[in-house]
Each structure stands twice: as structure tokens, then as C-alpha cells.
């Protein structure tokens, strides 16, 4: 069984928001449902300035706090390790949103339920593209998706090569790795 993960190289990120809107369009989300959010930093002083944009989304934690606190079992970890939301079980108590330290779970104002990055398990079924929408859309190929357990996968090799790390150390067992 594959153990899916993602690598995001912020050194390649130009902060263009294409991944966010691609994700919304390809997954038919509301404008307010941003499965990807961004933290932006500028460092240095004028005129020697550097900028960095860090896209954040569900880290598909192996010890997902959202799953631990969800009272109805709507938040779950699937067989492939992807953290999912069973909308039919979600009462919209937003406890998972409070528990997720990455603040990447989003309230759907129409259904009242909570949703988040699915590693595009949904769109893969309907439109012939197996890759995550954000990965596909990224203009600078800053993202790699793949099987973390396969040492030959692009992502495993890239993580080894770049020493990519989870964004917040061992806050949770994250499966999204960052090059910064």
C-alpha cells in the first residue's frame, strides 16, 4: 500500500495563487473554500530584501489531531494514509478546525460541514487526471506528489536530495515536506 505525501519547494514558489484556484476549480469548491493557504515572509531591510511564500494545506498527518477529536468519525485516515472527510457524517462542530494546528481545514458555508485538501482523490475519478490539481497547476513545478514508501519515487528521491522537512518539526507526523 502506497503512503502518499507531497513535497513543496518554497524556493520555487512565486506566490501566484494558481494552486489555490486550480484546486477550487478542479474540485468544484466555493470561493471561500481555500484548501491551500499561504504564509508570506519578507526578510532583510530595504533594499536587500528576500521574500518567501509558504503554501500550507492538509499535511495528512499520520497522527492527525483532527481525526482524534472528531466526535462523529467524519474525519478519518484512509487505507492509503490520506486523511479524509466523510461529509455524510460531519455535523459541522468545527472541533477538527480547532484541533488542526496548521489551520487548513475549511468550513463550507453552504453545507455547514468541514472539508480540506484530499490529495485530489475526488477529481482523479472523474476527469482522467490522477495527479493532484495543485501539483498539475503549479507554474514552477514547486510541488511533487508521490509514494513516500517507494524509495524510487520522485518524491522520495527529492526529499532525500533536498533534506526536505515537515513545516513545523515534529508538531505532528506530517506527510507534506518542505524545502525552504
Amino acid at each position, binding site marked *: 500500500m502506497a503512503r502518499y505525501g507531497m513535497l513543496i519547494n518554497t*524556493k*520555487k*514558489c*512565486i*506566490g*501566484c*495563487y*494558481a494552486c*489555490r*484556484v*486550480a484546486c*477550487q*476549480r*478542479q474540485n*468544484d469548491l466555493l*470561493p*471561500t473554500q*481555500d484548501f491551500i*493557504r*499561504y504564509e*508570506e515572509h*519578507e526578510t*532583510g*531591510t*530595504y*533594499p536587500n*530584501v*528576500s*521574500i*518567501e*511564500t509558504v503554501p500550507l494545506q492538509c499535511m495528512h498527518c499520520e497522527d492527525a489531531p483532527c481525526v482524534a477529536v472528531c466526535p462523529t468519525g467524519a474525519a478519518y485516515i484512509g487505507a492509503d494514509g490520506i486523511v479524509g472527510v466523510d461529509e455524510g457524517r460531519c455535523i459541522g462542530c468545527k472541533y477538527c478546525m480547532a484541533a488542526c494546528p496548521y489551520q487548513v481545514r475549511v468550513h463550507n458555508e453552504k453545507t455547514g460541514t468541514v472539508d480540506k485538501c484530499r490529495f485530489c482523490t475526488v*477529481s482523479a*475519478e*472523474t*476527469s*482522467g*487526471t490522477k495527479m493532484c490539481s495543485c501539483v*498539475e*497547476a*503549479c*507554474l*514552477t513545478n514547486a510541488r511533487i506528489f508521490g509514494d513516500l514508501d517507494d524509495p524510487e519515487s520522485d518524491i522520495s528521491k527529492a526529499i532525500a536530495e533536498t533534506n526536505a522537512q515537515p513545516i513545523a518539526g515534529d508538531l505532528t507526523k506530517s506527510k507534506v515536506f518542505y524545502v525552504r
Partner: protein
Amino acid sequence: MSENAITRRSFLAGSAGAVALTAAAGFMSFDAWEQAHADDASGGGETKTVHTLCNACSSKCGFTAYVVNGRLTKLIGDADHPYAKGKICARGFGYSQIAYSEDRLTDPLKKNDQGKFEAISWDQAYSEIADKVKAIIDDKGPQALAMVQDPRPSGKYYTKRFMNALGSANVYTHGAACNLSKESGMTQAIGTGSYSSDVANAKMTMFIGRSYADAIRPSSVAALQKAHEKGSHIVLVDPRCSNSRVFADEWVPINPGTDLALVLAMSNVLVARGLYDKEFVAANTVGFDEWARALAEYPPEWAEKVTGIPATTISRLAVEFAEAAPAASIEPSWRGAFGCSYANSGETARAICLFNTLLGCWNQKGGALFTPSVSAGKLADERFADPKKPEDKLLGSAEYPLALSSMGTNLFAAEQAKEGNVKGMFFYNSNMAAGYSNTAYLADALSNLDLCVVVDVQMSETAMLADYVLPDTSYLERLELPEFIGGKVPAVALRDQVLEKIHPNTKPVDEIFAELAEACGVGEYFRFGVDELADAQLQTVGLSLDTLKQTGTAHFPEKEFAYGTAPKFKTPTEKVQFTSEACEKAGLSPYPVWVEPATMPMGDELRLVGGKQAIHSHTQTANIEDLMQITKDYDLTRVWLNADVAKRLGIEDGDEVEVSNTQHTGRVRAKVTQRMNPTALYMPSHYGCSSPDQHTAFDVGLRQMDFVPFHLEPAYGGAMTQEAVVTVKKVGA
């Protein structure tokens, strides 16, 4: 509409291999098509893929639209399209929702005596507009009519044909508020309005006011990234540290409006130290000695005082350019800093071409290239014959002689409207009233017309001023004429119809102008369908409409660009012109010299500069919910203020500030940042929509053009959109 249909069922039933193949090829095989139609009888969802072109900006990138049960779902950039390279940007994804916007115009509208719009029939609209057109022509002649349009594949053809059929030469693009000065200035130096910097293969490229990462064309971003990863020296010259900083080696925070001084000083260094390509200059140019003498006045020490860039930096950059030459250039930009911004924009463009000439980089690998393009040949069918060429010249061509006649100075037309010389104006895909120059002036000018007709998809500020508003289909609901694209390998691409018409009483641009022409009595020039013309144009280049629908993009590899010798320049002298007679005749110096900006900030004033954010195109996308939500989430309407200046003014990050000048006063929050030149204030160019019918965009943020005086750049006719100064203070302080 292309019939690349397949049912959901057959789609899912297909083997993984077939699915992968389909995705790779981007369209369905005939077998799949046949199977799909066989399945249709049994019901079930239908998935269709159509190649088309985006309309979120002028790049018009190719993508494949997935349509499930008649509704647009996925968009995948076409790998074959030279600008898309398999990607589309945030605007491309978001703007697709214009088709489903609740703020779409659905019926022809007429402004009644109370100034309110009421729906009328197309017939009534056509006949009333035609009556007024005829009255204007009878009274003042066809030159009292003018058209302003932001070119799109069908729009640019039909609008021009319509006006020429009426006998008017007054067809303007949005250019005066975009890249008119740049294209016109470059034409004076090198005989053509632009060139391509071979960024990906360059050892050094300087961008002046242009940010590939903020005004995105995917292929350009890819080239910049490739250059960066190969260790190319990328220099950003910009009062604002743009998002391109990620792939740049240095940010040169120039005082806005002084780019010309930088280019003159770098040229001074090359000439004074003998670091220029003497062989190339001797063989391919005229007037070098005169310019060289004039350059003596512009040493880096002089430019330091003007630009705020240390003389040592200017000298270093010039020397680095010389070392990198000929695999180096100043990138041509688009609107950026000198498309239409200052009193010296045209001359800046001219100087940049001359600087590149000193590098000897024309058509050299990594340098500045003139890439080939292909266009449709002569059409045999007489129905497509051009109307008689109008007798008069485009209005403004005498007053602004350097302005390219292919663009014209639309602001001059507005000025003539205000003065009563132009009586009727048409607008297609153009929001002049909100985006081209001072909004109060333009509202006044357009209100003075006997006839103002706007063709658009939503109630723009310009449409609000119109007598008649005609509802266009969205770009996803129509076939357009083929779009020919210049490049290393020239190509042609097609905007095909993706969706069935959503609002039955809307019409595509080709129909609107054909039917309007019919009503005006010049229908004989429009007795063909857009599909017929598209096919005829494609036949002249060995293609057909059907074949292009299958692939979306087709290339002309036989015309591929080859590096090598200098081209034949299309100037009157067929050489690079360090001196231009036309410029001299227009009252400018024959060779570029320093020209002060028209306005300089004094005391506490800051120059107001605009610029794109990656999620918006001018005012066109602000009403798209997907995109405007990003603006709201990240507070992107904020004006950018240098941190030291902010401290002096007692302004903290996120504070509400009042921005004011003689034209306008408004409130907005401030972003206090190290990424800004201290003499300028950046205001994003997308906000401040004043059309209440655009429910998402209305009243969000400030509008740059409210603060910009109405004025035109001498000789070139640009809008001088950054010749405005403002003061800023904290609200309540």
C-alpha cells in the same frame, strides 16, 4: 462546438492506459467519440473536452476544457500552446467562472430618460443605434465615430471591419493605457514594436518594471525559472520588489520615472569605456556618433542623483552586461514602467533598444530576438474582401505622430468626444472609463457623446456611461477567429466554443457587429459566418478549422527561428536608428536624451505607481468571486508603503490611511514593507470598482485612475498613468 464527447460511463470503463493516453493527447480518438455517441442513447453523464483559449489576459493561453453534462469542470493548460506550456495561471482558472457569473448582462439595454437601463430587443437596439450612426455620419462624417477595443481574436477583426465599412479610420486599441509608448518608441529605434529576450539562454537579463511572476504568462515564468536555475544573472529594476524576486539575483529599487536615466548612464559606461559591440554598431546602425556625444552628459554619478541607484551599481551593471554580451539584454517589457507610464516612456523604450544594440545581442543566443510569425494569406472568396480604406487617417495621428497607427491614441478620441468633435463611440472588451486615465474626465467625455455603445459581458464602468449596452457571450460560449502567435516556432491557436450559450439572448461578438453593420446599411461586408472565415484563414496556411479544433494549437516548424546574423531592421534606414527623423519631426531629440517626468514628488508627496497582482487583470477580473476572495483573504487592496516612510508618517502595517491628491481622496489599508522605494506608493491596479451591478467587485479598495490626471505623453500619446503624486496620512491621526 468540437464533438470530442465521451460519456462518463465509457470514460470510466476505459482501461487506465487509454485514459492516460487520452489525457496526454488532450482529445478523444474517433473510436471514443463513436463509442460515446453509441452510449448517449442509454443516458448517463457526458464528458466532453474542447481546446480553447483563455481570456483572462492578452496572452490568450490554450487549454483543454472538460465539460461534464454541459457544465465546465476542469481546465488543463495545453502543453502544445506556446504561451501555456501545459499550464494556466490563477486568473485563467478563476476567470472561467465569468460564464456562470450572476452579474452577466443577459439582454440588450437602453438608457432611458431617467438614466436607468431598460431591456430592449436586439432589433430595437440595432435600429436605434443605426439611426444615430447614420445621423452622425450625415452631420459630421464617419470620422466623428470611434471604436475602442482590447484586441481579442474575433473582436479585433470585426470591430475594425465594422468601422472601416462605415468609413471611419478611428479604431483604437486600449494601447494608450498599456504599451503604446513602448511599442512606438521601440519602432523608432528598431522598426518593430517589440522583440523577445531569450531569457532562458541568457547570461544576464534586466527587467525594467516588468514582473513575470506578477503579470503571468506561464511560458515566461518557465523561462525565468530556467534562467535562474542555470545561474543566469537576473536583475529587477523596479520601485517595488516584485514576486519575481524569487528567481532574481538582485533588486534595483529605482526611483519611479527615472528608468531612462539608468539606461542612458549604462550606455554612457559602455560607450565611454569602449565596451560596446563596435563591429555590430558600425555595420547595422545610423546616428551612433551623435548619440555617443550626447551620452557624455549622463555619467553614472549624474544618474545616481536622478535614479537613487548608486553610481557604482550602475557602472557594475553596465560592465556585467558587456561581459555577458551578446547573451544579454534588457527585456522589452509590456506595460511595466514604460508602456504608458511617464512623459519619458517612449524615449525610455527607444533607449533600451539602443542599449541592446550596444550589446550586439540582436538575434544572438541569450540576447534579444526577432522571432518569426505567420499570418493568414489573401482570401480568394470575395465575401472576405476588405472594405474600402477610409479616406482619413486615424484621429490623433497628427497630434501624436509617433503613436503606432495599429493602436492609436484612444485618449485623444476621448478628448475629441469631450470637445464635441467625436459624436459616437463604440467599446468592445474595453473598460476605458475605469482603467485608461482620469475617471472623472472620461465620464465627462463619454457623457458628451450622442451615441455610446458598449459590448461587454458585465456592467463595466464604461457600460454604465453608455446609451446602449449589448450583451456579449462569454469567451467560453463562442468560436473565434484563429489567433496567430509569433515565437521561436510560430503557431496558430483557436478559441473554440466550450459551452452552449448560457443566456439565450446574448450574442457572440461576430454576430453583434455583423448584424449592427446590416442595420447601418453596410451588411455586405459581413455575409459570412465566423466559422467560414476561420476555416478560410486556416486554409491559407495549410490547415482547416476541423483540424485545428482537434489539436487547439498548430505549429509551423518550417518557419522556426534560427540564431545568427542581425536581421534587416524595418526602420526607414533599414538599420537600428540611434537618431530618428520622425522623433525629431515630432519635436523630440533625434536621439534619446534625458526627459524629466512630468510630475515629481515634492516634500511629503509620493509618486503613485500601479501594477498587477498575479490574480487579476486590470479591472476585468475583480468581479470573479474565486479571485476576489483571495484579495479579501490576504487584504490585497492595501497600498504598499516603504517602512521608513511609514515610520516617519506614524503609519503601522494594516493601518487605514487616507490617500489624496488634487484629483481624488480615498481610504484604504496600508502594507508597510521593505519592498518599496521610499519615493513611491504602490496601489494595485484592479480595485475600486464603481459599478454596483458588479456585486463582488463593487466598492472594494481604491482605483488608481481616480488619482491620475488626464494627460497624454507628448508625441507618443500614452496615458502617463504614473505621472501622479499623492500624500498619505493615517486616518484619525
